[in-house]
């Protein structure tokens, strides 16, 4: 993988998913308190609010990343349109 392609793959996957995850986390957690989720799902575990935010953020990022990677692979590696 050339340096440029590496860059494009990072710029095209990690980065957009990070942006959307940041945005999604803000919207989600502004409306839902992780504490409430925690009490309703796994009340026995010790999950602080901060940990709750982090779990949410990384979950969003992970999902976005998966989608971006698939898009990248499909558009970058596949057969090319003839010119």
């Amino acid at each position: 993988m050339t340096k440029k392609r590496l860059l494009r793959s990072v710029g095209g996957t990690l980065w957009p998913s990070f942006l959307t995850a940041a945005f999604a986390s803000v919207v989600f957690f502004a409306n839902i308190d992780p504490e409430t989720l925690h009490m309703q799902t796994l009340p026995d575990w010790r999950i602080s609010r901060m940990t709750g935010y982090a779990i949410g953020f990384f979950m969003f990022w992970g999902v976005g990343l998966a989608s971006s990677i698939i898009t990248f692979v499909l558009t970058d590696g596949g057969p090319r349109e003839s010119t």
Partner: protein
Amino acid sequence: MTRPEMPAEDAGMYVAREKIHPREVKGRFQNLRNLAVIVLLGIFYGLPWVQWDGRQAVLFDLPVRQFHIFGLTFWPQDFLYLALLLIIAALTLFFFTALAGRLWCGYACPQTVWTEAFIWMERWTEGNRQKRIKLDKSPWNREKVVRRGSKHLLWVLFALFTGVTFVGYFTPITELVGRAVSLDLGPWETFWLLFYGFATWGNAGFLREQVCIYMCPYARFQSAMFDRNTLIISYDEKRGEPRGGRPRGVEPRKRGLGDCIDCNLCVQACPTGIDIREGLQYECIACAACIDACDSVMDKMNYPRGLIRYSTENAMEGKKVRTLRPRVLVYGFLLLALITGVLVSLTQRTPLAVEVLADRNVIYREVDWETIENVYTVRILNKDRVSHAYTLTVEGLPGIEVITRSEQIRVGPGSTASEVARVRVPRDAVEGVGNPFRLIMQSVDDPSIRTVNNARFNAPSE
């Protein structure tokens, strides 16, 4: 994994990039840009240190879910403001892009601003453009180690400082710095500090213009907001061509030359490494460095300035320029309306929120022959920074009254309380379900803090 050879037309995307060393220029726009860097970075690094009413003026306190911005405290209930703020920010960007092109990119984008700061550090340690290019090529000797080493040391320290400042918007910064110095940070603080520091270091130190070219969504869609009357940086081809070298003091037209002396300074000054003389390109972040470079040459040659200048497509073609186009007016109007709306609603904001929930188990209760009772749970959120005592009253039905456990309900600053409200109405005054009435919560010490909630009273149907 092997891949087939890339077709020729793609090869351009994959050639190893040569590091761009933008030439230092002096001039009006460079001054403006320096000012922008100092002001914006000053705000970013300074703001967390500002105190207001005995606490950090701007603090996004995630653990307790409160945002403090100077005198105001925002709660998750105020999410609307955040959404409006984002919309206003986006509209502002559209407005200025339609009017003046990529102003944002050239002067205000954190990517540009931090890159500029990192280039300053590069200049202090490695010298000007020529010296840096030479240093790149030179073998690793003592000088190179010292210069490179001090550059990277500066960069890393600055990036770490940036990370601390960023986290300082979420944790009180005075304590944070104390703990950072004694290496006693919590795991999340450490993580976000390093994360933000690393991002700054990588983006401003190494990726630079590649962020704009490959990673920035705005760079891709800004052209949709452009039209023929948008300000762009352009090279006056009619005046400049044919380009070519000439001795000073020669009248160019006599030699069949245009005003461009082909010195390449505009190309050397460009942080994205393009040649503006080839026309508008999407790599151009409108930083105006080439204008300053070219103007300095024009001054030396005693030619009028502005061979490269801010202009519009229409102006370049000698057509009339219209500043107030429908799209500018629409963006401007929406912006004005939204900002006014937010400001008005901010001044009207009561630091009290009340929710009323009817008891779902019992529709109504007959207290005695004369009286019907409904029970409600009232949740009170005191958004103020001092504690208040509130009284609850009711109105809207004849003879209606409310009984609470105590006359006054005291709620601490930034706290919530629940109270059971027994609302009673004489039997002959109501009939059937869903009779509307109002619950009024009012602060005892400040009668202007007052909310009105609508609720429904249920009674037997006769």
